[in-house]
């Protein structure tokens, strides 16, 4: 930095620190906000410019809080940023009154400083919004992946819609958790409602089946449409000895048989011959 620039910045800082209450009042007027609401921030800025808070950490902390408060009060992020920018107008009057070339030169520096602070309030707003979206996405994932009990010891996870890596992982963890909690030894993962399966998703499914096996439960994958079967073969994904069925019904029958259940319909076993009833 040149000697000139240093002198300019110093002059501007001095001007700022000389002002005390008056600058705060001017800022409050130009920003159309009560001086009380700006006071803490103003004091922190003074401290920072006086060299007590070189990285402006305290200032940023207060600004973040200020930004959040304004949002709660219903102000748009642009309005909040403009509140900060108004300090430039207030300061300019003082610089003009001083008239020294150093002060005028230093004002460019001051202006950039305030711009940064204003943009920071915008960033705080943006980050907070992103967090809300993330939280809601998670909640949505939780809600849209039900694990249902089909029968004693048999649960099913009907997967619907496009699967991405994140969602598949959530579903799979939920399935394993349910297996443990309910002590179900059989799970049916039905992908009838899934239009396409890519390598990553297929691997997640495989890993889930293996994890379930490690825990002591067996999984059957059902609802595999011809196109998906084709994709799996083309991608070279090995399903090994994992049982796959075309329909959920077949998968349920398989699981029932494996769990030792036998089903009678109308008092007869499904493959029993209908006989004449004897009096």
């Amino acid at each position, binding site marked *: 930095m040149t000697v000139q620039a240093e002198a300019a910045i110093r002059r501007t800082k001095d001007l700022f620190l000389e002002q005390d209450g008056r600058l705060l009042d001017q800022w409050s007027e130009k920003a159309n906000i009560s001086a009380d609401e700006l006071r803490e921030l103003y004091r922190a800025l003074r401290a920072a410019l006086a060299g007590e808070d070189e990285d402006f950490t305290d200032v940023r902390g207060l600004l973040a809080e200020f930004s959040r408060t304004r949002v709660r009060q219903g102000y748009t992020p642009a309005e909040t940023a403009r509140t900060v920018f108004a300090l430039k107008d207030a300061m300019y009057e003082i610089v003009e009154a001083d008239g020294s070339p150093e002060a005028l030169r230093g004002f460019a520096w001051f202006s950039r400083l305030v711009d940064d602070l204003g943009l920071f309030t915008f960033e705080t707003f943006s980050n907070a919004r992103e967090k809300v979206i993330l939280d809601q996405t998670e909640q949505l994932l939780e809600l849209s992946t039900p694990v249902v009990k089909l029968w004693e010891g048999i649960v099913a996870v009907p997967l619907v819609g496009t699967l991405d890596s994140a969602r598949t992982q959530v579903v799979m963890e939920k399935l394993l958790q349910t297996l*443990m909690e309910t002590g179900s030894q059989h799970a049916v993962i039905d992908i009838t409602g899934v239009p396409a399966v890519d390598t990553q998703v297929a691997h997640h499914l495989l890993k889930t089946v293996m994890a379930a096996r490690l825990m002591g439960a067996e999984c059957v994958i059902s609802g595999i449409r011809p196109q998906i079967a084709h994709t799996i073969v083309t991608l070279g994904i090995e399903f090994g000895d994992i049982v796959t069925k075309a329909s959920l019904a077949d998968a349920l029958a398989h699981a029932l048989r494996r769990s030792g259940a036998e089903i009678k319909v109308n008092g007869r076993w499904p493959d029993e011959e209908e006989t004449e009833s004897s009096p």
Partner: protein
Amino acid sequence: MTRPPILKLGDILIVSIQTDLDDQEALALQDDLAEAAVAARARGVIIDISAVDVVDSFIGRTFATIAAITRILDAETVVVGMRPAVAITMVELGLSMGGVRTALNLTQAIEMLNHARSPG
């Protein structure tokens, strides 16, 4: 050194791992189970890991070794209560614990052991 207590339920031995075992303690458990299986003429050994939150390659191999040893002593080993996070991690780690049977809970483990004795 912590040595998990081994309980006897008829001719089935049950041990519940409640603490984070170091490698030495895992090996000691292996020895304790082998001795107990012989002494009790056990037909089954159940290892409850529902309180275990990490199974690394050493512990995994220890279970596999215990299963192999007990098989020679004519008993089956069943590992019970594996947590989902542990199962997922083991799959990713590539730890298969081949030869070790698993069950979701104690009841199923005992059913498994009963079934093994009298097939059909």
